[in-house]
């Protein structure tokens, strides 16, 4: 471990210390050079760059996740995500009337510091994009072990438009070791908002860092996801999209389903047919989407988990090696890791059987049920902690709110004004 801080991207002169860079960023213009519309347009240009087959970004960044990011950055989509939280998006640029003599204005929170997890490399760009279109300045901290996938986007962005240049100039990317406490403290003490992505240990240690009392904390912690489907409702395309939700990101995203509840009796024709069709799609997609190279412990874990399921009375469908596993169990086996394309199918007959099996740290339940079942399931499961119920194929689409948290209200300050009568 070392105390070295690498400044991976900065608009300021090279060789400055982290303290100097943060100070310069705080002292820089507060984002008035580019308004909300200009910033949204800059993100749209960045999306177009990602999509262009000749784009330099596509040569530098692995394609996994780029389609999600390109969709997210498009003007209409991003604007829609922000509008979900605001009665009138014009409040991001001017005071807008909310009552007879009351107006509201949303201004940037200030300096937003992002601590990034390594599970999905492009993840920081989603929270960063929302933060910058709202006018905040940003410090993104990567672990020294992570590849820097953020700077290539900033290098392209700053050439696309004036607003793109402003946004890039308001962003600093740094990397340092997890035990570099002084660097973590420096960021934390300067932050007006802290965004922490990661596991229990990581997010707890970030929350434990000193900061000023007004600092806003947004924590995207260790959540898990599942799916609930009715074989009478889901068609072949839906099964393929559900398998895609599991396969992309190798189940490393919080939104990747680890178990699938299937509305059918275990020995019924419907359940067997679903299991066979899902396994076939899982097999096809596992070949189509290259997986990261597993180390010995990951391969061993898959073998161990397969044995655990079988010893527990479950059944297994799998490929000849360790590319994918579909386990059939009566209830989720908590000792099984469900990683690297290992999914548990759990048959059920009534929704009441599912509710007690929803874990407390649940994030996403990919859902495809009949209309009445969907209404009943989502109403009750939402109160049990579920944050979103996308349909198959949408599971890994980052959206706002995320993890039950609206980012716009947390990354802006709402300012009230009484108007003249």
């Amino acid at each position, binding site marked *: 471990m070392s105390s070295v801080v690498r400044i991976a991207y900065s608009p300021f002169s090279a060789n400055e210390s982290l303290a100097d860079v943060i100070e310069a960023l705080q002292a820089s213009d507060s984002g008035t050079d580019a308004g909300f519309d200009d910033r949204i347009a800059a993100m749209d240009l960045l999306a*177009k760059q*990602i*999509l262009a*087959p000749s784009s330099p970004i*596509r040569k530098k960044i692995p*394609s996994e996740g*780029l*389609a999600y990011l*390109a*969709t997210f950055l*498009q003007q*209409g*989509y991003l604007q829609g995500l922000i509008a979900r939280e605001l009665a009138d998006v014009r409040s991001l640029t001017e005071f807008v009337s909310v009552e007879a003599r009351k107006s509201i204005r949303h201004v940037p929170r200030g300096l937003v510091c992002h601590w990034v997890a390594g599970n999905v490399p492009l993840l920081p760009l989603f929270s960063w994009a929302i933060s910058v279109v709202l006018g905040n300045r940003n410090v993104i901290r990567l672990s020294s072990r992570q590849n820097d996938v953020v700077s290539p986007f900033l290098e392209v962005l700053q050439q696309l438009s004036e607003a793109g240049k402003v946004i890039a100039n308001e962003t600093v990317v740094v990397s340092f070791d997890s035990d570099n406490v002084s660097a973590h403290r420096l960021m934390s003490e300067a932050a007006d908002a802290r965004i922490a992505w990661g596991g229990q240990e990581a997010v707890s240690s970030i929350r434990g860092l000193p900061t000023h009392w007004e600092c806003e904390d947004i924590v995207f912690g260790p959540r898990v996801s599942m799916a609930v489907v009715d074989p009478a409702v889901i068609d072949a*395309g839906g099964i393929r*999209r559900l398998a895609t939700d599991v396969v992309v990101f190798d189940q490393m995203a919080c939104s990747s389903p680890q178990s699938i509840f299937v509305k059918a009796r275990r020995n019924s024709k419907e359940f067997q047919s679903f299991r066979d069709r899902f396994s076939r799609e899982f097999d096809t997609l596992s070949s*189509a989407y290259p997986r990261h190279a597993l180390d010995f412990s990951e391969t061993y874990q898959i073998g161990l988990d397969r044995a655990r399921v079988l010893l527990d009375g479950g059944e297994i469908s799998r490929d000849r090696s360790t590319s994918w596993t579909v386990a059939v169990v009566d209830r989720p086996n908590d000792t099984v890791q469900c990683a690297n394309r290992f999914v548990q199918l759990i048959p059920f007959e009534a929704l009441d059987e599912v509710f007690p099996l929803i874990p407390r740290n649940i994030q996403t339940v990919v859902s495809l049920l009949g209309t009445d079942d969907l209404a009943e399931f989502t109403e009750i499961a939402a109160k049990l902690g579920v944050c979103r119920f996308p*349909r198959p*194929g*949408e599971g890994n*689409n980052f959206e706002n709110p995320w993890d039950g948290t609206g980012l716009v209200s947390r990354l802006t300050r709402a300012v009230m004004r009484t108007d003249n009568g």
Partner: protein
Amino acid sequence: MSDTATQLKKLLADLFQCSDSDLSDDTGPGDINGWDSLGHVLLMTEIQTRFGKHIPVEDAIEIESIADIVMLIDNTEAAH
């Protein structure tokens, strides 16, 4: 073949550099080179540009074939 289907196949042929004769109403994402996840997002943006129709992400995800896109374009109001 409807006018929309003809125009859409021409767009696909331009975008993914294939011949329109390679495309049938059943052709879908993954069936031709370039029509992968990124290609699909690009296709949706081009549809907005050329047809003036915005296909919501939730619908775009569920597209299985050219016939699905034609139906969406024909049933979608022009984007403003």
